[in-house]
């Protein structure tokens, strides 16, 4: 589904990603871990198409298409979804309005009929239960005055409605208490299927107790320095990132 080859990218002349290689197949969940400043969020933003980041080198093939050639909205319409680390507030625009516009844009792109209000409302009611959101939430302005937990749940709710093929969760666990974390993870798990893939970007292993990954990659200084199964996350948790930092050279060659 997704193949990243030798990706170099940065911002304002600073190279942050220094040659990323990653392959994600449909049905898989990949966790990307790493210390602060290793380039995790940059990778997420570059995949989503944030313009501030400049791609210097490399390729990203997504379902046979060159992802980097697509505008951000077209990437979204092709099924790439980014759950933001810091969801943005949009005053005066209701959650319902945003979701209806987004969903219909995506449907139009695929030559499907737009949903009418009744069809749309029944769809979102069903999806709301997934992340245990209250009905009155729908008429509120996007992320305005939301608590940290509500914002993150809202991201997963949007993901549930838009049904992406490739979901990238950027530090979705940050700022969540354990109950909210369970709700969010539960939502993500229910959306897993053999046809879609998830990339979970996280600093802590905690989230991976609930969203169990098939693969874990350790990102350090702009490169993936170690990959493994879910047990790698536990090992990291036990040994700390210093383990990676200190033994970087040998890890790279493994």
């Amino acid at each position, binding site marked *: 589904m997704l193949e990243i080859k030798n990706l170099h990218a940065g911002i304002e002349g600073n190279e942050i990603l220094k040659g990323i290689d990653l392959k994600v197949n449909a049905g898989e969940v990949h966790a990307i871990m790493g210390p602060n400043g290793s380039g995790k969020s940059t990778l997420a933003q570059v995949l989503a198409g944030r313009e501030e980041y400049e791609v210097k080198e490399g390729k990203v093939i997504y379902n046979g298409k060159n992802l980097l050639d697509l505008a951000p*909205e077209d990437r979204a319409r092709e099924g790439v979804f980014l759950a933001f680390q810091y969801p943005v507030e949009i005053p005066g625009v209701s959650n319902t309005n945003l979701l209806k516009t987004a969903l219909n844009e995506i449907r139009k792109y695929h030559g499907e009929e737009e949903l009418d209000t009744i069809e749309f409302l029944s769809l979102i009611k069903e999806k709301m239960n997934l992340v245990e959101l209250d009905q009155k939430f729908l008429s509120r302005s996007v992320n305005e005055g939301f608590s940290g937990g509500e914002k993150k749940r809202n991201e997963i709710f949007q993901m549930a409605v838009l049904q992406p093929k490739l979901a990238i969760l950027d530090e979705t666990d940050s700022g969540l208490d354990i109950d909210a974390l369970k709700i969010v993870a539960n939502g993500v798990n229910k959306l897993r299927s053999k046809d879609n893939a998830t990339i979970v970007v996280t600093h802590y292993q905690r989230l991976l107790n609930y969203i169990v990954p098939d693969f874990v990659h350790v990102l350090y200084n702009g490169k993936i320095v170690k990959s493994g199964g879910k047990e790698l996350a536990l090992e990291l948790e036990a040994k700390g990132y210093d383990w990676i930092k200190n033994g970087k050279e040998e890890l790279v060659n493994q």
Partner: protein
Amino acid sequence: MSSTEVSKIEELANKEYKYGFVSEIEADSLPNGLNEDIIRQLSAKKNEPEFMLEWRLKSYRHWLTMKEPHWANVQYTPVDYQAISYYSAPKKKPTLKSLDEVDPELLEVYNKLGISLDEQKRLTGVAVDAVFDSVSVATTFKDKLNELGIIFCSFSEAVQNHPELVKKYLGSVVPYTDNFYATLNSAVFSDGSFAYIPKGVRCPMELSTYFRINAANTGQFERTLIVADEGSYVSYLEGCTAPIRDENQLHAAVVELIALDNAQIKYSTVQNWYPGDKDGKGGIYNFVTKRGACRGVNSKISWTQVETGSAITWKYPSCILQGDNSVGEFYSVAMTNNRQQADTGTKMIHLGKNTKSTIISKGISAGKSQNSYRGLVRIAKKAENARNFSQCDSLLLGDKCGAHTFPYLEINNPGAKVEHEATTSKIGEDQIFYLNQRGISTEDAIGLIVNGYCKEVLAELPMEFAVEATKLLSVSLEGSVG
């Protein structure tokens, strides 16, 4: 749609209207220029009673003593008042057989605005078929209004058929001495609308439906007078979201509203006159005086405006709160793009006790435009317990435009409670990216953000108007980013 495509549409549409105005008989026009003789001829052509002519002459003589004001935050080439013809009989546009003959790009704009097919036909001068004959629809409305004793007609008809009402109320809110443009209008106004709602009557329809079907070329000096008698209610809609073009550059209209005891007037405007091209060439100067008098106790006047058109907009729909417990409201969205300039706001004059006013102003500037809010809240000495709340927000798109706020407060009663809030913000790149990431294009994202920003004002518009206005805001911003 790119900005070049937009201006191409403007260009084509412009051509269309020019064509429409050329062919007709010039015989029934007065020569250019303004003097007493011209005013006498104008009044005679309209077969006006003596009092009207006197009023026009009085206004003209006063106008001669006045100087054109220049305090607004706008710049423009001076108007040559002697180069204008102050009377020409309505000219007919050539009638087309079907919408197929209309420029398809113009139709695309209409479709984007969600304007119905019948209205598209009317706007483009296509003959309407017998089944949906606008005249018969209008007659149906008129019958219904008649039953209730509501008078709703052109200003000229009102002068002929209800001279006592015109005489009583004309100039009672905006006196003929008021300001340069209002005084000029008083001398030479061509036509406009008149409405009278009798005691205790609630007008059962938005006075738009009728108006929009009948919308005639009311010309550059339009005059509107609306009187709501005791305990009555009326909602009046002016304008149209469809782009409107006119050969006259200067538009100096006057609107007077009068609300007697316990009466309510809700006046909504959507203004989309031709704003000129990208470099600011052409475009209409919209210098309007709009004022309402809450003359009776517990009366209420509410102005809602969505201003997207005109090269220059200069207007301050105001309320004079004379009656005790009367309420004035002003809800405004003013959007400027390219080289447009807007200096708009309101005046709330509190005279009576327990009077209350609310001002919500949302300015949006894009391109190289300048957008100013100018507002006055005056609390008179005797206005016990007066209250005002003002909120003036500015939204900037890009870094070549300007937003300015000029709030004036004159408080002469220590018991008054006046609150003013102002914010200036920019549409954030992160907001746009967030919406992009949900599959929404940048243009649609800006439309969504802007409409969200204007929500409080748009909510005040009557439903059908609100839907069109929402689309209008997005269409007006096309080409402002990228």
